[in-house]
């Protein structure tokens, strides 16, 4: 291989570029990204960066100088418009064509818009990029009350940050509790309670009918007919994978770009990674996840496979969320499970952890302020260790001893 091209200057793309060089690849690396910045971590956008506690350069995946030092042809502020998988050519928005020997597509996801009247009013915002976070921070500085639509991770973290910034927050959430789709009713209820303790007004089981305003949004009308006044609104109601470029090039797509266990798409020498990749995971089956850590690790595996390795991506999908003083972590994947084991008590704010067993094997772990339990359960999940529920529940058990 002489030239590796990466579409997506983000966590996955930066990781891939970095690992290509770490592995000794001295050919051309072209890194293309739509945003004007070098690749940066998105997790702080709803937390430290949003609250103005840290600058964007602190979140850069690599320092700005690094790309030149590593002889990486970085094209920030550039969009890829076409892939010709037959002649292995990528076209950029200015019309330039770049030949590739190996191509990694890491085009990520975008926010799903709410299809209701007024959704295009000024002040109805989403959060995906640093520019989005800048806009929210700017408006929050003079805002009194904000409505957050959706209480998934983005909504929950934005709500927490806005409360810490002294803004009144009302949440409108379609499901019955916070983080319902990921955590379920019981654990979601614990997170809901934490937000209530911090003064968030939450309206569950309610959709949004319309955003109402004039030169900007003034209120949110819910499905029960309530009208909630706001200075601005933040919408976090799901995402859409940016798979159009791949789809137009004829790559198989279905909720993202379909990749095999080794991150290969259906086109020769084209891989995909990060949030846009719908991956055939060796342990979890076909799944697409939207986690920072997964994007970084997929980038690393993709890079090695671009160089001819046959590495299967078998990471256990770990992610975290920080809300107020609560650190939430989860690893594994268990859409269905047979048994739930709780270590500690769900009512204990100091922390507890929850293990999900499927066919006797540890398949997923959740920890509230229990990062050690999550970390130590990850090797158990990776190989599907059959653990004794009594031992799992026992605080005295060192989880590292269960894998032996």
């Amino acid at each position, binding site marked *: 291989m002489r030239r590796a091209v990466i579409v997506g200057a983000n966590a996955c793309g930066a990781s891939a570029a970095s690992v290509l060089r770490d592995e000794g690849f001295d050919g051309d690396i072209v890194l293309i990204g739509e945003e004007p910045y070098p690749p940066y971590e998105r997790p702080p956008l709803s937390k430290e960066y949003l609250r103005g506690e840290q600058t964007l350069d602190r979140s850069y995946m690599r320092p700005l100088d690094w790309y030149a030092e590593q002889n990486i042809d970085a094209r920030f502020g550039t969009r890829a418009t076409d892939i010709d998988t037959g002649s292995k050519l990528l076209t950029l928005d200015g019309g330039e064509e770049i030949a590739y020997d190996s191509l990694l597509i890491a085009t990520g996801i975008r926010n799903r818009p709410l299809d209701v009247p007024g959704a295009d009013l000024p002040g109805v915002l989403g959060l995906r990029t640093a520019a989005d976070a800048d806009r929210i921070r700017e408006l929050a500085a003079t805002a009194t009350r904000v409505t957050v639509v959706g209480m998934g991770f983005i909504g929950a973290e934005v709500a927490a940050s806005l409360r810490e910034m002294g803004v009144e927050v009302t949440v409108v959430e379609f499901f019955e509790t916070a983080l319902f789709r990921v955590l379920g009713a019981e654990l979601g209820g614990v997170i809901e309670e934490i937000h209530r303790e911090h003064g968030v007004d939450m309206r569950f089981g309610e959709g949004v009918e319309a955003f109402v305003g004039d030169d900007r949004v003034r209120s949110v009308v819910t499905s029960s007919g309530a009208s909630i006044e706001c200075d601005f609104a933040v919408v976090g109601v799901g995402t859409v994978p940016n798979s159009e470029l791949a789809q137009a090039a004829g790559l198989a797509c279905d909720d993202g770009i379909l990749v095999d266990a080794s991150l290969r798409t259906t086109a020769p020498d084209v891989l995909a990674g990060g949030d846009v990749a719908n991956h055939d995971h060796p342990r979890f089956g076909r799944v697409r996840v939207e986690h920072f*850590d997964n994007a970084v690790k997929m980038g690393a595996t993709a890079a090695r496979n671009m160089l001819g390795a046959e590495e299967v991506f078998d990471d256990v999908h770990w992610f*975290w969320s920080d809300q107020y003083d609560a650190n939430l972590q989860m690893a594994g994947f268990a859409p269905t499970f047979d048994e739930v084991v709780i270590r500690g008590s769900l009512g204990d704010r100091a922390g507890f952890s929850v293990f999900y067993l499927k066919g006797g094997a540890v398949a997923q772990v959740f920890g509230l302020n229990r990062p050690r339990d999550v*970390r130590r359960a990850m090797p158990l999940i990776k190989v599907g260790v059959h653990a004794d529920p009594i031992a799992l529940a026992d605080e005295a058990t060192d989880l590292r001893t269960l894998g032996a």
Partner: protein
Amino acid sequence: MAEFTAIGRAGEVPDGEMKVFEIDGYAVAVANVGGTLYAFQDECTHQTCSLGEGDVEGNAVVCLCHNAEFDIRSGEPLSGPATMPVPVYEVREENGELQVAI
């Protein structure tokens, strides 16, 4: 050349464990891996969590807040969200004291 400063007693950090010490308001973590001592800045370069409250896995210290991993010998980031190394220090046990060179 930094001078060694006593921060504790020899044997204070048992095998397989980490402990955090303070020197003039600066927190230093000391890890004992199979009888070899390592000292490094306690504060993670990612989001300021305590590395000493983390886990040691082989030659890596893991910050449990967000799973940043550093090489315990060099301080270089190995995995996870951290990109900056943590400072590492020489550490020894002498005259019944635990000493680090800062």
